[in-house]
Each structure stands twice: as structure tokens, then as C-alpha cells.
């Protein structure tokens, strides 16, 4: 198969969120001798880009995003070790620790944010829902994150976002992480009040904010 056709099949498989097809396409590409980095940059990344664009136009929704992200992650599990073995390094945009704060069980917004961050090349550590403030910090320290992203839907749970910042201060590590907040009841005013580094009104804002935050830190991983 011509290289272009290979890249096209990778792109479609990602857009369709077909994990098995993606893995098969990756396997075929590797057998053809295509470099892992090219598989990612020329085949898979354009697929993810199109997924993001379709999502922004409301042509597709969360399930398609999650499935595309799953297909992506499955492929990366195969490709990343090959890149490392060849002495290379996969360029990651950054690392994000993500979660819904303590007392809050809403997850859809968080899941969308997670998918969009992955599509933007971030390594995402999703802690799930009802996550105590200190757990965000502990995980961020453990994985060397760049960004902590905390979601809170309710007015009675958004104070936990402030709590995260207080825990960071208590451990003397506030300066190491950009803290982004979002979710139903949160506002820019609230983010300013608690000293967060960014506020996302929509899930789509999260990736843009995270990219800016990492750039400000002066490092892409």
C-alpha cells in the first residue's frame, strides 16, 4: 500500500474511534517500515485534529471523542516503546492531573476535558470523581505534572478548588503547577479570587489554557 493510503487509513480509524482498526493500521504501517514518529505525526495526529474540529462544530460528541482517545492511547502503547528503544523521545505537550473535586460526582465535563487534552498531546492522569484536594497534589508530585485541572459543578463543591491551592501552598509546591478550574458554578471572578491560573468556561477552553500554561512554564515535554 502506498504511504499516503496508510496514513489515510490511520486517520480514518482514529476519526471513527475504532481501536482495533487503528492497531491493525499501526501494525501494517510498521511492517511497511514506516517510522513510528511518522505514523503518529502524519497518520494519527491529523485524525485527532479532525475529531477536535468536528467536536467544536458539534458534529460529534463525547462518545466519539472518548473512542478516538481510546484508539489513540492503544496505538501509543505500541509506538512509544519503539520510539524510546530507538533512542528517541515522544514529544508531549505536557502532563495534566485531572479530576472532579471532593464531594462532587459529575464527570461528563471532566471527561470531555480529558479527551481534548489527550488530543492536544497531553499525558492525562484522570483521578476520577470525588477526589480529595491533597490527592491532586500527591499525584502531581508523583508524575511531575505541569498542570492540575479541577472540575466542580456545584456551588457547594467549588470551594474544594481553593482547597487544592491551599494544599499546594502548604507543601511549598504552588509554583510548580498551573491550576486550572472549571465547571458549572465556577466563574473567572472565582478563579481570580482563589488565585487559580486559568478558568475554562467550556471544556474546549481547557486545552488552550493548558497549552498556554505549559508554554509559560517554558517547557514542552
Amino acid at each position, binding site marked *: 500500500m502506498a504511504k499516503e493510503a496508510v496514513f489515510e487509513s490511520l486517520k480514518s480509524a482514529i476519526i471513527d474511534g475504532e481501536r482495533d482498526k487503528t492497531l491493525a493500521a499501526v501494525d501494517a504501517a510498521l511492517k511497511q517500515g514506516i517510522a513510528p514518529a511518522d505514523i503518529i505525526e502524519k497518520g494519527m495526529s491529523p485524525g485527532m485534529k479532525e475529531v477536535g474540529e468536528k467536536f467544536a462544530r458539534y458534529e460529534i460528541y463525547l462518545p466519539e471523542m472518548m473512542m478516538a482517545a481510546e484508539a489513540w492511547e492503544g496505538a501509543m502503547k505500541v509506538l512509544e516503546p519503539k520510539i524510546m528503544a530507538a533512542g528517541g523521545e515522544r514529544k508531549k505537550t505536557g502532563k495534566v492531573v485531572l479530576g472532579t473535586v*471532593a464531594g462532587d460526582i459529575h464527570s461528563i465535563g471532566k471527561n470531555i476535558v480529558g479527551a481534548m487534552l489527550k488530543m492536544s498531546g497531553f499525558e492525562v492522569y484522570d483521578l476520577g470523581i470525588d477526589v*480529595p*484536594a*491533597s490527592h491532586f497534589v500527591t499525584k502531581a508530585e508523583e508524575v511531575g505534572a505541569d498542570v492540575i485541572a479541577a472540575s466542580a459543578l456545584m456551588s457547594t463543591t467549588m470551594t474544594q478548588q481553593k*482547597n487544592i491551592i*491551599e*494544599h499546594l501552598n*502548604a507543601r511549598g509546591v504552588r509554583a510548580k503547577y498551573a491550576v486550572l478550574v472549571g465547571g458549572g458554578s465556577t466563574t473567572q471572578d472565582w478563579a481570580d479570587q482563589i488565585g487559580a491560573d486559568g478558568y475554562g468556561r467550556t471544556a474546549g477552553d481547557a486545552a488552550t489554557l493548558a497549552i498556554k500554561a505549559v508554554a509559560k512554564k517554558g517547557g514542552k515535554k
Partner: protein
Amino acid sequence: MLSFSEVVYRALNGPICTERDFDLAIFVPNLRKVLQKYDIKYDPQNPIPADDDFADRIWEAAMEFLVATGMFCLDTERRILFTREEIEGALQTGPSGSVYGDGKDARIMPRRYPEDKTPPWCSGCGAGPVSKEEYVINIVKTYAEDALSDGITAPCITNVDGLPVQAGSPTAIEGAIRTIILTREGLRRAGRPGLAVVNEVASAIKAAEHIAGHRFGDPKVDHLEIGLIHELKIDLDALNKIMYTQSLNNLTFAENGVIIGGYAGGPAGVAVVTAAYNPVDMLVVRGAAQHPFIVPIEKGTTSRRDCIWARAAGLQALSRHSPLPAVGSGYSSAGPMTKMSYYEFAAWVIANVVSGGSCEMGVPYRGVLIDHCGPMEDIFANGIAHAVAGMSRKEANKIVLALLAKYEDKIPDPPTGKPYPEYYDTTARPNKECIALYREMRKEMSDEFGLKFRKTSPYG
């Protein structure tokens, strides 16, 4: 006294600390410091110490330890600190003569001192986990029929129509509701409808379960029992229960189960921490009674020599200095329908009463074997408690030593005793064998130690 909303504020905004740091960098070093400073040492030869100066040193050690350590809120990972003035303020505003129960069943919680003649408060019923709902009704009824029973510690059902009760789940909500309904029915059948239930809601773990169950009893006389976490820790769930009680006339039993072999270390540390819990129970739990029970880390019996010593020493310290009455609870390691369980109950109850405490009669076999319950051991213990009010600690110490000699060596491998169906008959009352053993043990206590029992139960 500090307001509860201020305590909540501190739980949400106090200084941040990890649990590990609280335990090993704050709690343990602070305790070791005061044990040394005040020369608090365990004396195994005298399970009931009789040294007022020693008791006072334990108290001072405890207050100093509490001011330096504070409490730890698990959910927020923050410390709740109190000043000496705030603790003194709490001690000065402590409860006085709380009335539990209603109508003819109303009983006043006494404040007692070491060697006090004042009759102790006695609550219990001797049931832990039970498999059938009718057992709850019958056991509660039997215990409530004793005129010396001032309150009820309700049993705990283990299943809802065959579905196991699982904490945090709907079966626990339904289990809590049923428990209180069954307990109330047992009291009604005993002709004691106004008797207080002091451990609401048995079967419940989480705040949602307690609060749900509470709705289905009699809020005037059903009181939540709220506990802290070993040691000097609390979580939002417990604070939520307390907040709920603030809107009601709840006379909370503030439970502290200090562990020998846990963070408080040996008996000396445990005695100090038990005393330290007393103002905590006022300031944080907003209790009407402190409810301590000391257990060793490996098995939950309270009748071991070191447990008895720590209980006696701790109780003497706090009863000499605080208005908050202490109702000590206890378990036997032997199961029901064994002489050993009777000896064990007698030992810790005597130590409790002569050291200034009142009693909540607990459960045989550490409350861990389903359907292995009282209540005859509890009724016996009621009698013991009243019989030793006013006795000197020295005299009581001799009795306890003699009792320890009868059972101490069997604690590691105690007899399991019999389950409910083997000592209750078809008329829903204790059977002949059960009553015979109960009477035999009363006679033994009377003959060997000169204890005089009152005839207040239908069983003699």
C-alpha cells in the same frame, strides 16, 4: 464554650498536615513527652490504682498533651487545635444532670467520683450482631425488664430479608430504620416505652444511615452515639452527625475506643489519651457523656489486666476534674452462657464504678459472633455495679485480682458459649439453664466477695 461552628471552621481551615505526620511526628512524641514528664507508669500488680495524686498527674498530662496535639480531620487533612483557655471553658460549661428517657422511665445521668456511693448509670442489653429481627425485640425486652436498666444499647441486625447489610448501601439505611423500630417495640413490650436508647443507630455506620434511622424512633429519647477515630481523629461524616444533633435535643454518648498497642502505646499512654478525650467529647462531639472503652489491638476484649488498669486510671483522672460523666463500656472475651464471661463482666464493671464511672454493659465474645449475646450477663452486671457503689478502690482491687485469677489465662482462647436459640425458649424468654447460671453467678459473687445484690429483675 466554643461554638460548634467554630470547631467546624477549624476542621475546614486549620493547619494542613498529613495523617502520617500527625501520627508519628506530633501525636506519639507529644504523648511520650508527657508520660515522662508526669511519670505515668503502668502497675500490673494493681489493676485498680488508688492514688489520687497519680490520677491528677494523668489529668495534667492529658491536658498538656491535648493542647500540644489537637485533633486531626481525615477528610480535610487539617488539625483542630484548642487552647488551654478553651478547654477550661468547656470544662466549666459541662453538662449537669442530663435527663435521659421520658415519663416514668426518665433517668438522670449522675456525675460520679472515685469511691462514690452514688448509684451508677447502667445501660446495655448485651446484644451485638443478630441474625433475626425477633431476637432484637426479645433481648431488648428482657434487659429493659430489669429496674436497674437506665437505658438501652440496641443490638445490630445483620441482614434485611436475607440480604446482608452493607455499610453505605441502601440495605444499611433500611437496616438502621428497622433496628430502631424493633428496639422501640422491645421496649414497649417490656412496659418501658420511655426508656432512652443511647447508641442510635445500631446497624448504622454513616451519617445518612444514622439520620435516616433516627426519624423512625422517638427523637426525644433516642440519642445518637457518635465516635471518634483512633486516635484523636475525626472525619466529616462524624462532624455531619454532630451538626445534625445540634438541631435536636440529642444527649450524645461520645464514644472513644482507645487501643492498647495502637498509637497511644501501652496502658500508661492509653490512660492519658482517655483522659484527653474528655474535653474533646465536649468541645467537638458536644457529648452529654464520655463513652470510653479500652481494647487491646489483637482482640477486642476489655477485661485484660492492662485494659482494666488503663480504664481505672483514666476514669479516676477525668472524674476528679471534669463535669462530663463517663459511661465506660466493656466486652467479655468469653461467649454467653459461660462462667468466664460473668467473671469478666464483673471485673471491668467493678473497676469502672469504683473509679468514678458509670457503665454500659457490653456484649459477650467481644460482640463479634452473630447471635452470641446477652442479656443475662448485662443484668448480672447491673447488679454488680450497684453492689460496689461506695466501695473503696483498695477493696475493689482485691476482688478484681481474684476475678482475674479465674479467667486471665483463658483470654487467648476463650469458650464461645452458646447462641441465642440455645438459651432462649419459645416464650421469648431466657430458658431455665440460662436463668440457673445467672443465679449461680450472683450467689458466687455474694458468697466469695460479700456483694449484696438487689432483686430487680424478673429473674431474681
